[in-house]
């Protein structure tokens, strides 16, 4: 390769953050380019629809830019933007539900045992047998049926790959509460998807 390392190596996140803090818009734009896909996906999973996901995406990055001076550089920018986006997403849901004054966790969802009803194996590779849009719509519909904190815990733990402790800290939940919600979220999603994907 004949190009200089500066042209080929992606800049270190901390360098970009320092430059963005100094008012360099191009550096901030580079950070946006790195994480926009993931933040959009996060918005989709928490709000359950594309329109709100787009709002979450825009508001999260706008807020991040406004609050950059407060960003502590000993933490990761990505974790920070995820936290902002999670808050934006949950706020959207609260607004949507404010007329009803419904809490983000429906209490009845925390009680009772979760016992599976579907015990069938699935057809192999359902993802290869459906058009992408159809599969996305099935997955979104199942997520939208979960209470908001269940969706958020599922997304942060299973899709984003955060640890139980990080998820607990981000959502102000105990470690036990995160585990309980993750268990319920996984089994409920599995149950919904089983109705569609079961071998039969």
């Amino acid at each position, binding site marked *: 390769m004949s190009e200089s390392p500066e042209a080929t190596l992606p800049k270190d996140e901390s360098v970009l953050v320092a430059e963005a803090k100094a*008012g360099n*818009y191009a550096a*901030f*734009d580079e950070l*946006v380019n790195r994480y*926009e*896909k993931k933040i*959009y*996906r996060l918005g*989709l*999973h928490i709000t359950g629809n*594309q329109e709100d996901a*787009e709002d979450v*995406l*825009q508001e999260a*990055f*706008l807020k991040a*830019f*406004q609050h950059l001076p407060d960003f502590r550089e000993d933490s990761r920018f990505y974790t920070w933007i995820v936290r902002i986006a999670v808050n934006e997403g949950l706020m959207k849901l609260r607004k949507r539900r404010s007329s009803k004054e419904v809490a983000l966790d429906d209490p009845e969802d925390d009680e009772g*045992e*979760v*016992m*599976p009803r*579907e*015990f*069938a*194996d*699935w057809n192999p590779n*359902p*993802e290869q047998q459906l058009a*992408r849009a159809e*599969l*996305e719509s099935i*997955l979104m519909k199942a*997520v939208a049926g979960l209470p908001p904190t269940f969706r958020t815990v*599922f997304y942060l733990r*299973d*899709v984003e790959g955060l640890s*139980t402790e990080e998820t607990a800290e981000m959502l102000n939940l105990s470690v036990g509460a995160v*585990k309980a919600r*993750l*268990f319920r979220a*996984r*089994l409920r*999603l*599995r149950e919904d*998807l*089983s109705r569609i*994907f079961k071998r039969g």
Partner: protein
Amino acid sequence: MNCRKAINEISNYLDGDLDAELRETIQVHLDKCHHCHAVFDTTRKTIELYCDGKLFELPTDVRLRLHEALRRKLCSTPR
């Protein structure tokens, strides 16, 4: 170990979040109980589907509107 107990630990089992003894007990149950094995297997498959990076792409128009909104707002903000 019965099915109810096995299912209640299925999430921790998936995460490797169990002590060796309980893990072993569940493994033995899953090996002989087709129902629980199917639940375990399809739960793992559920997670895999949601993690598929080819799904939920950022649409081009959404991306363009994001960058447009940022440019408008940020370039007009004195810092």
